């Protein structure tokens, strides 16, 4: 009996990942990155609780070029994981599994993540509470 016609599982090295598969990997990656990124949240809250001098040290770091780059990555990871997470909730409820729908929702997830990231940074540079 010939076994040549048996279906093969996709060999990842030669298989061009569809966008949805790529976003799935990025979802997991951003989830892990955000777990590590909680350290930044704890640091900022601890600095604020510690008093004015520790807070100004934290603000100076967050406002530096390196700090801003890290925060930019942080906010994009957050908004990507949020947008794609909402798509996952639709999937969990049983909606949106058609091939074309998945393609469209992939682009919506990327657009929403990009839009929210830009919006939060525009807000950060435009509005300042208390001054």
């Amino acid at each position: 009996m010939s076994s040549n016609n048996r279906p093969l599982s996709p060999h990842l090295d030669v298989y061009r990942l569809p966008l949805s598969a790529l976003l799935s990997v990025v979802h997991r990656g951003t989830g892990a990155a955000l777990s590590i990124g909680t350290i930044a949240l704890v640091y900022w809250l601890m600095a604020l609780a510690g008093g004015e001098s520790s807070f100004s040290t934290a603000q100076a770091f967050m406002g530096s070029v390196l700090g801003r780059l890290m925060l930019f990555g942080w906010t994009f990871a957050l908004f990507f994981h949020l947008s794609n997470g909402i798509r996952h909730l639709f999937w969990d409820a049983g909606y949106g599994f058609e091939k074309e729908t998945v393609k469209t929702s992939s682009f919506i997830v990327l657009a929403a993540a990009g839009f929210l990231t830009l919006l939060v940074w525009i807000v950060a540079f435009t509005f300042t509470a208390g001054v």
Partner: protein
Amino acid sequence: MSLRSPLGTAKGLGSAKEGLHHWWTQRVTAIALIPLTVWFAFKVAVLSQSDYQTVLECIGSPWSAALIVSLIVAAFYHAALGMQVIFEDYIGHKAVRVGAIMATNLLLFLLGAAAIIAVIRIALGG
């Protein structure tokens, strides 16, 4: 139509041998985090150039502190559940896997506790 076998339905256990709780809790925390993270991200954005007193008052006001503590609980719980799945998928060696999950849980608990203590101290003006 249920995809579960009659025996599986009776025992209520999936391949993880512990039922639905992990999966369900991850969804509940995910839903809680949708409004909480959006609110917090934009709150911090507005405060990013503010002076110390303004930030202290905005983070430490009662409702704000309550929402941030809720955010911290949901976020760290969600992170612990998510990291557990990643370790379960990629670490084949059982002792290493269990050790990694346990270490991550303890570390995330400590970080979450620290964040909550900070918020309480800010809120109570200590």
